[in-house]
């Protein structure tokens, strides 16, 4: 192979290129310094890759409140996404809080990630100074740097992160021939004396994944089962109503029994609620809108509403 290519290059390639670059195939083009500079954005724990710049906690707060707080919470407390503040020192406890502050080993990684991937809806739009500032503020939210801190390319890699020593590579997962940490044997007969059931799916979770009947193939070894008459509760589970509503308690939307209580003396509630279930609505129970449910048939919506208004029992 290489001999053929050598010959090919000797005959057809530009001699200077062959001399300078022992490329076997020669496809593509040399990456220019400018091209590399534009894409070479990663930052290593030793600070390699950090651009010059600086930013303060105060500057970071202004940017954070504008561009980050809607997802991460004003104080970085939102656990809807990865929680970014709090939990420092909790990892060894029975209730570990996995946050940016409690887990991260190097502040450079935080800089790298904000720079490449944040804000979520507009990544790579912050300037280096802004990234230093937001990094400083996020670290301040976990009390890793003081409120008057200013970070730059020299100070950032030197920051002592609380979980700096919290990682290990002493395990068998880094190599194909790594050593496993469990040692089961392929016993074939009388392997255990007693089999004890330790866990099964809890009742409250049984409907969370929708109609399992719909998730099998309808032919071959997966024919459908005959189904008993459905209750409003069955329908509510299958239509994923329970993703937002509890039977008794408010989740995202009101609990079904709260709905029943509110409309107990309203004779027209059934028709109105059927229409509302189908079309969606907002305002009665708060600012979070209920999405329209166009897939629910009128008959099923009525069954659910009747069940709710009857007390959701």
């Amino acid at each position, binding site marked *: 192979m290489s001999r053929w290519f050598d010959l090919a290059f000797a005959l057809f390639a530009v001699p200077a290129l062959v001399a300078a670059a022992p490329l076997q195939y020669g496809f593509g083009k*040399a990456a220019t310094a400018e091209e590399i500079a534009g894409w070479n954005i990663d930052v*290593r724990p030793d600070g390699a890759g950090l651009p010059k710049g600086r930013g303060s906690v105060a500057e970071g707060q202004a940017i954070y409140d504008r561009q980050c707080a809607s997802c991460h919470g004003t104080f970085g407390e939102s656990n809807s996404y990865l929680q970014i503040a709090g939990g420092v020192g909790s990892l060894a406890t029975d209730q570990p809080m996995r946050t940016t502050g409690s887990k*991260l080993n190097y502040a450079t990684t935080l800089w790298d990630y904000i720079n490449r991937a944040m804000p979520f809806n507009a990544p790579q739009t912050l300037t280096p100074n802004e990234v230093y500032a937001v990094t400083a503020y996020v670290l301040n939210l976990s009390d890793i740097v003081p409120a008057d801190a200013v970070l730059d390319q020299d100070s950032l890699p030197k920051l002592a992160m609380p979980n700096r020593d919290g990682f290990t590579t002493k395990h068998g997962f880094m190599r*194909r021939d790594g050593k496993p940490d469990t040692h089961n044997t392929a016993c074939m007969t009388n*392997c255990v004396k007693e089999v004890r059931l330790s866990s099964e799916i809890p009742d409250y979770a049984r*409907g969370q994944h929708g109609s399992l009947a719909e998730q099998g193939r309808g032919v071959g070894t997966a024919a*459908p089962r005959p189904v008993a008459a459905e209750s409003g509760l069955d329908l509510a589970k299958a239509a994923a109503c329970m993703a937002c509503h509890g039977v008794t308690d408010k989740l995202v939307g009101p609990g079904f029994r709260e709905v029943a209580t509110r409309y107990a003396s309203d004779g027209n509630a059934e028709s109105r609620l059927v229409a509302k279930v189908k079309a969606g609505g907002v305002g009665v129970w708060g600012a979070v809108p209920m999405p329209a449910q166009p897939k629910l048939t009128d008959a099923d919506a009525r069954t659910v509403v009747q069940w709710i208004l009857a007390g959701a029992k």
Partner: protein
Amino acid sequence: MPGRIRPAPENHLPDAGRRGLLRRAAALGGALAAGAHAQADDSLGKNLPPNVPEWSRTLGAPILASPYGVPSKYEASVKRRESPGLTRTPQSSVSFTPLQNLFGIITPSGLHFERHHAGMPDVDPHQHRLMIHGLVAKPRVYTMDDIARFPSVSRIHFIECGANTGMEWGNVAVPTVQYSHGMLSCSEWTGVLLSTLLDEVGIDLNKAKYLLAEGADGASLTRTIPLSMALDDAMVCYGQNGEMLRPEQGYPLRLLVPGVQGVSSVKWLRRIKAGDAPFNTREESLHYVDLMPGGVHRQYTWIQEAKSVITAPSGGQVLLDRGYHEITGLAWSGRGRIRRVDVSTDGGRNWRTAKLQDPVLAKALTRFRIDWKWNGEPALLQSRAVDETGYVQPSIRQLRAVRGTRSIYHNNAIQTWRVDATGEVGNVQVV
């Protein structure tokens, strides 16, 4: 003929006509003909012998009714699904492969599980570039045309998310194999061996020890790849099951690191940088690290150890008949080939060795099957994989003894499905 299995325990079928039919069928004693459920009118039987079916008495659709081709409308239930409440945004989320409905070892490209970290970008292949730089003699930029000119290989490999089965470390949380094991897929991948590209650019074998792989998505997702694996069998892929990669799988170019947790097979691959130390990226310090008892995280936990799961009968299905049932499932190992799969129907007391379906390939899904006669009594079905290193898939008890219940990743425990006396199959754990 295999015993019939039907899906679903507690839920209903939402289509009213279908329910009506099923009620009627139930009234008739539950004797449902296979496929008859799809009919929603009162003509049950008119297409059955001795009558001639209507599709035999009419002209069918012409060619190119669907130029690309889509599954039969009767297969509409076979699709990827998300697990409600698992993630907050659909852009940084995961959808699961319906393993319960698939045959053999190849995952149809449209059913390959999805995991995006900042949504799925729409990459123009004409403007996509792969840059290789760092500790190399000749940093290069390649177009897709350039990549396609290199000598190519096609190989069958699985991709499993490191967090597959991660919801079940502490207790049972999900009802079916789609949710418990569906961050797992297997394709025939076509592309260039990464070693070919690294040779071409003159990787510095004295200094370079690790690569950084970076995607072109909004996350610019980055992962550290050890050079040993990069030079062994890692691929830069553009083909999947005979076609170009699907957008969900990184169109037009992705990395594939066989046997390693899926996040390392960086999608929309745009940059490879050779370095002398691991890069400690966000996806290997804040995520994809395994919390151990005592509070220390294992970092760079790349390998997916041997694992198996029975896909039929599995959670959410119902055994309709006593007698013969084929138990079938999938086994795989990130360390090589599957050597053997054993199956227990009594919760692990006794085991029998299953048949492995050829081909049995390294770091690929392997299909296993074993005969079973269900006597109508409750049963606990388990499968246990042994790979070519001799490693035996562990029990959940053995895993917890070492790693606790909070490590999220790398749960390769033996899965248990309970068949109860009514034939319903549910997800359980035994100790």
